[in-house]
């Protein structure tokens, strides 16, 4: 639970309490206004520095993009895409890629290890590596391809939305580093409102008539939301799925199959109990039939 130090009353203070009436939900949210991102990568460096990761060797790959994908020790990556518009003009699209902190997190659903993935009431989905068994089911469960496996420690890592900072009333490191104010942080309600306002401004005042807010319902909404120039075409921003969902197999496995499995286990136990009541305990010493002797001889 975040310690937001929301003020309830102030001694000797005339007038209203600051912030009174504003949404102070504990749901946190990061807003990324892609239309004002300049791809400066300050967020990438801030993420590395705050989380204590250092230099890794990279290779130039026909792009300004630092590396092809996020990595177990590189959680925040600006994706650069040269998109050809219908009129032949080019758009240079820059999207900050990181964990979306889904309200219905596929990684958590898929994870079999007790306590390895935790979803806080404020919406942050956090990995606790001490409980991670390295099975990488979370990798399969994520529709955004975010969790990354460290082969040397056999643990999976991803963006924590700076749960350590947020729980101390600070914004995530990327937000603090952003020079243009393309990144915002606050309650989900406030961020959603800000995002919708910006999208409406883009639709009314610029040529981006399809601007909109990316907060996909397929994963129950996310605690990282985007303002996009073109909400109808999120794929052009480098693999942002139009309609992300928790994978069917994960759902099946952790839903009906898990239920079935539970029932099967329960029915098994019930069966054993009935068997016990019906036939009584198995008496090993009593069985001296010829087949048992054969079994012993065989072994």
């Amino acid at each position, binding site marked *: 639970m975040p310690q937001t130090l929301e003020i309830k009353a102030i001694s000797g203070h005339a007038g209203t309490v600051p912030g009174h009436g504003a949404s102070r939900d504990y749901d946190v949210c990061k807003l990324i206004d892609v239309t004002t991102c300049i791809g400066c990568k300050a967020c990438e*460096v801030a993420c590395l520095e705050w989380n204590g990761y250092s230099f890794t060797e990279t290779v*130039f790959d026909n792009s*300004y993009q630092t590396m092809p994908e996020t990595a177990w020790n590189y959680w925040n990556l600006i994706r650069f895409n040269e998109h050809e518009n219908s009129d032949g003009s080019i758009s240079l699209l820059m999207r900050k890629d990181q964990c979306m902190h889904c309200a219905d997190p596929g990684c958590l659903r898929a994870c079999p290890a007790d306590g390895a993935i935790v979803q806080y009431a404020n919406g942050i989905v956090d990995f606790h590596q001490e409980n991670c068994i390295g099975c990488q089911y979370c990798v399969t469960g994520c529709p955004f391809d975010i969790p990354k496996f460290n082969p040397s420690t056999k643990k999976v890592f991803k963006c924590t939305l700076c749960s350590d900072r947020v729980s101390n009333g600070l914004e995530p490191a990327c937000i603090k580093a952003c020079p243009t104010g393309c990144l915002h942080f606050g309650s989900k309600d406030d961020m959603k409102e800000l995002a919708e306002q910006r999208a409406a401004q883009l639709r009314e005042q610029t040529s981006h008539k399809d601007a909109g807010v990316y907060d996909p319902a397929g994963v129950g909404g996310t605690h990282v939301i985007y303002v996009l120039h073109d909400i109808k075409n999120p794929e052009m921003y480098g693999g942002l799925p139009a309609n992300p969902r928790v994978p069917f197999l994960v759902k099946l496995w952790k839903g009906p199959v898990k239920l079935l499995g539970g029932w099967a286990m329960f029915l098994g136990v019930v069966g054993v109990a009935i068997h016990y009541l019906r036939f009584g305990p198995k008496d090993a010493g009593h069985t001296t039939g010829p087949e048992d002797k054969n079994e012993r001889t065989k072994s």
Partner: protein
Amino acid sequence: MTNGWIDIKNADMMLVMGGNPAENHPCGFKWVIEAKRQRNAKLIVVDPRLTRTAATSDLFLQIRAGTDIAFLGGLINYTIQNNRIAKDYLLNYTSAPILVKEGFKLPEDGFYSGFDPASQTYDRNTWNYAEGGDMSGKAVAATAPAGDPPQQKSSTAAPKAPFPPPLMPEKVAYDLTLQHPRCVFQLLKQQYSRYTPEMVERITGIPKDQFLKAADLFTSVRKDGDMKKVATVIYAVGWTQHSFGTQIIRTAAMLQLLLGNVGRAGGGVNALRGHSNIQGATDMAGVFDSLPGYLKVPDPTDKDFKAYIERITPKTVKPAGWDSFNYYSNTPKFAVSFLKAMYGPAATKENDWAFHYLPKVDRNYSWAQIWDNMYRGSVKGMFAFGMNGVAIGPDSQKNIEALKKADWLVVGEIYPDETSEFWKSPGIKPEEMKTINTTVYRLPCAGFAEKDGSMTNSARWLQWKNVAVPTPGEARLDQDIVAQIFLRVRELYKKEGGKFPDPILNCWWPYTTPNNPSLSDLAKEINGKALADLTDPKTAQVIKAGQQLPGFAWLKDDGTTLSGNWLYCGSWTEAGAMTQRRGTDDPSGLGMYLNWAWSWPANRRGMYNRASCDLQGKPWDPSRRQIWWDEAKQLWVGNDVPDFKADSPPKDHMGPFIMNQEGLGRLFVWLNDGPFPEHYEPIESPVQNLLHPNQSNSPVVKKLKTPADKYGTTAEGFNIICTTYRLTEHYHYWTKNNPMNVQLIPEPFVEIPVELAQELGIQGNDKVKVTSARSYYIAKAFVTKRIKPMTIDGKKIYQIGIPIHQGYRGIQEDAGRDARTILNRLTPTVVDPNAFTPEFKGFLVKLEKA
């Protein structure tokens, strides 16, 4: 910047050209975003490449590198043809109504009047205002001035001394109807009538419809005569680094004056400076042709102080009935106070304030010349502090060859760099190394976080910073090193004498710790102090001898004040260091922050702010009130410090541009290469100048003549335009030593249009070799859709772009993960004739798979 970083948020329209602020000034770029978000301001970006700035723009136009004047000239033509000019502003605040001398000729054939082919210079005698009075309505015939043909006749004459700049007549002639064929406005109209949308398309490669869209959008701030809206122009070294760089900026200034955008919140012509303190470097005479505070350097014709002062102090010039403040009439006060700061008690009235101690600058000592002189053997040694001369170029290989010939080189740096290791640059074999006899002294210096002092940003703010960490190891502060060298040289002069020891022996060195002066001591001296008790006759305020001066209005020409730089007077007063102030109050909401640090001049944040008001002294836009005339107080007051004579009432019609002797925004000036900007091709260009094919380049631009100075042509196969730039991930040649930056952009690359790559069979990440007439560069191919092939006058032309950052010293270079070539091996040594900035943007190359 005429305005400031934060002020960009007040703009309604923004033109970014010759700059890439999103990548190179990301923190300042937030104000562009703020204007977009809060005011629905529009952003137009014109660049050879679709940059990260262009990515956030409302309109992007791809321009051929080096054709900015053609584009801006087209905008001027559009503004006039479509009546988007700010009529009252133009008539009253600019030189538009003033008449130009008879005999002045426009450059239809590429030459203005007065060209002397022998010296490749202009006799600027006709580039001047005409004498006379009110000529309003007295125009006889509205015909264009005939003028003389270019003075080819003088081509046999021997080279002469440079022509002196013309002196303005005191009583200028003017025409308030703007109809006289020789008034500046009519000449300007005629000059740019040739820059039609069709011509703009043929020269720049920007399709006519796109140009018209941009022209309509940018000038829409003056639609239907409305004066409320404001447009800003933002640029950087993409404009300065051309053989006509100064003229590009002038074209922008003229456009902004025509539109009435100068002096106003959200407007102006805004230079984004590249380094955190480069503004401070120019203010403090980091160039050879000025003294601190932009006082002109003495030259050999100044036989004494009086002659010098007469030459550099402008006389008031104005149309009859108008007033002019001519603030530079105070030049003698600034100059005497400067000499008192230089030589202290040794500068007296009797000895002409020790004027004879100052070096007289007899010729060009600019950057490219220094290297050329070393290459030719006349410069024997060099101190290189805070810069990497070999990597900076132009023509890095020439600089390396020059250093091989030098006797000694002292490098003060925090990393081993290309300059201090020139002797083992790639291509030099061990046998050759043995023959290089240059002694290299490498001194470990302090990094920016290890020293205090003030830095002057693009917005002219002097901001003091504190030491964050101590210097490591044996590293020392720059002033520690420089002071000790000075003191020891002085000892040598004392002991051994010399040709002219007086300036060294009498250099005023009053610092608390002479062998390591504190920067606060220096900052106080730069601000200046009283040397005798001073009294302001108006207010009876007294400044006691020894006290810090509160501002440059207190400076005297009688030796009773001292100031190292008059422009900085007011930055460290008796109240303390104004540069250390951190007040965040901003009552106007315009982002002035008058109590944050200190801004020159006189802590005003927006220059020429008188022009933000109409003739009666009321703000053009009541929602952006900078200053205004207070009838009750009979004073100019407001949210900013008035850049004007505070008690000059509007009825006196004083010009708002008080640093010009006529008080007007100049649409016509006497630079070295023309009073109006004209489109000339870069020295290396794939096409002829369409305006005057017989004079493609600027006639006053000189090529250098050593064997190293080669210039390529299309006939030799150099037919791709190459431009150079910086990336947001790196800082010059420094950050290739910093793991974090290296990780973000690990290797050098060349941005190549997809179509060109296909033609040459180049795939992304292939190694390519770029060759110019000078040398070659090897890097990986970045095949991109962000640079498109261009059609220039029907001819298909490609442009490529190369970041400057890598070299042969750094993390990747040392590990052998890089080709270890320096980009500036490619660039030509040719410079702008006014500012002497090399032409890094737009030269010719060949491209092939390596």
